[in-house]
């Protein structure tokens, strides 16, 4: 048995859900729904044709100004589908959010960590919110996540 608490992820509807107990095998590593987080940094190198090649490498070390990608991969290891999946990721202090990374759907974003919406729908003191004011992002997965299914979400940012 593993006891899983619902997390306060900023949505009042989800936060209101009570803690529940889910029966699961003891090998917890590959059961349930897993989330794998990584931070990648753009590595620029000169290609043979004279262009600059940009690859993403794990960001063990960064410096101010570096472009980084925060990547979250989920996988449903359960034998049955799940629904209502919400993947949330706070934007760390010292990180300036830019937008969804290439190949990732755009997340809903939040300035205050509580109210989420597309960036264009948010305002700060009556003015349109800027990307660098975003403090948290989340992706709402529509429909069911079948057993064994996985997906990757990521956002691009820079080190302040």
């Amino acid at each position, binding site marked *: 048995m593993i006891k*899983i*608490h*619902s*997390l306060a*992820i900023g949505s009042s509807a*989800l936060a209101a*859900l*009570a803690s*529940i107990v*889910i029966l699961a095998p003891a090998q917890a590593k590959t059961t*349930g*729904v*897993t*989330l*794998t*987080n*990584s*931070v990648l940094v753009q590595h*620029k190198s*000169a290609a043979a044709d*004279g262009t*600059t090649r940009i690859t993403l490498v794990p*960001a*063990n*070390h*960064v*410096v*101010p*100004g570096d472009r*980084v990608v*925060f990547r*979250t991969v*989920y996988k449903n290891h*359960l034998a*049955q*589908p*799940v*629904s*209502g*999946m*919400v*993947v*949330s*990721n*706070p934007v*760390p*202090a*010292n*990180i300036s959010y830019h937008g969804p990374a290439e190949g990732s759907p755009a997340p809903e974003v939040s300035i205050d960590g509580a109210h989420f919406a597309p960036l264009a729908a948010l305002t700060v003191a009556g003015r349109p919110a800027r990307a660098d004011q975003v403090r948290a992002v989340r992706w709402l997965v529509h429909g069911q*996540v079948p057993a064994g299914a996985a997906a990757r979400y990521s956002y691009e940012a820079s*080190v*302040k």
Partner: protein
Amino acid sequence: MVASKTVSSKQETWLGALAAALLSLPVPHAQAATLAGTAVSNTASASYQMEGASGSTTSNTVATEVDEILDITLRNTGTETVRLDGRDAATFAIPFVLTNTGNGDEAFQLEAADPSQEVAPTVAIDVDGNGAYDPAVDITLSGQPTPLLAPGAQLNLLLRFARLPTGAGGATITARAETGSGAPGTFFAGKGDRGSDAVVGRTRAEATLPIAYGVGSGGSVAQLIKSQTVRAPDGTAAPVSGAVVTYRLALTAGGGTVLSDAEIVDPIPVGTAFVPGSIQIEDIAVSDVADADAAFFDGAAIHIALGEISQPTTRVVTFQVTIL
């Protein structure tokens, strides 16, 4: 024991004077880079529903360390060409400013050279910030580095001559981060603040400042000095396609003559494209079109009307082009 005590006493005096000097420095408002040694950690979470019940999970926590980036700028705070006429050799100095543009506490090593002088010029800390050398207050750096400068901190410095030059010439000041300098990206493991690594930034962690000086009123009444910096898309100074070149034009009236209707006309180089909106006069942006302000771009050259300039004012204009 006595020798040791004497050294200690000198150090205290030295540090006390430096503390006073550094406290008087302005705090730049633009400095906001994340400090070296800061850990950036991130944990994602997910919630879901399964057969009417809710579940949630959290990810691994990824921790990334912010390294110390080594960067520096040197800035001439005086006129483009310093006049030496009638100066007092005992107190005369040419002021300049060193800024730690990195994100860690860093000391810098300074050197000054002047091929026309038998004795190399020296560098001193302008403790009272008055732009003149006072042996009772200011501190000559005799080969030792500056004290540690906080990120964004500026240090007022002075270039001094053993004997005042008797003709026109130029000196060169070079400064380097003490931790290391060289090609951007050069890595110094474990040498950063709070146990972080140190990495050389875009400035190569070194800066060179040419200082021109003149004697008498001979020569032209105005001098135009043009310099450039290149910023490639990959952050280096390589003049490749897509790199942005920032040109700096400094016009100085030099002969005691008031210039009227001064105008700079500078064609952009072949193989480049003017960056719209990039013209600045004394760090203030002006428009590209021919209108009420002093600048415009005619499709081939920038025109800057500077009006009347009385000696020894310097007017500085910058604009940018992109290498095609």
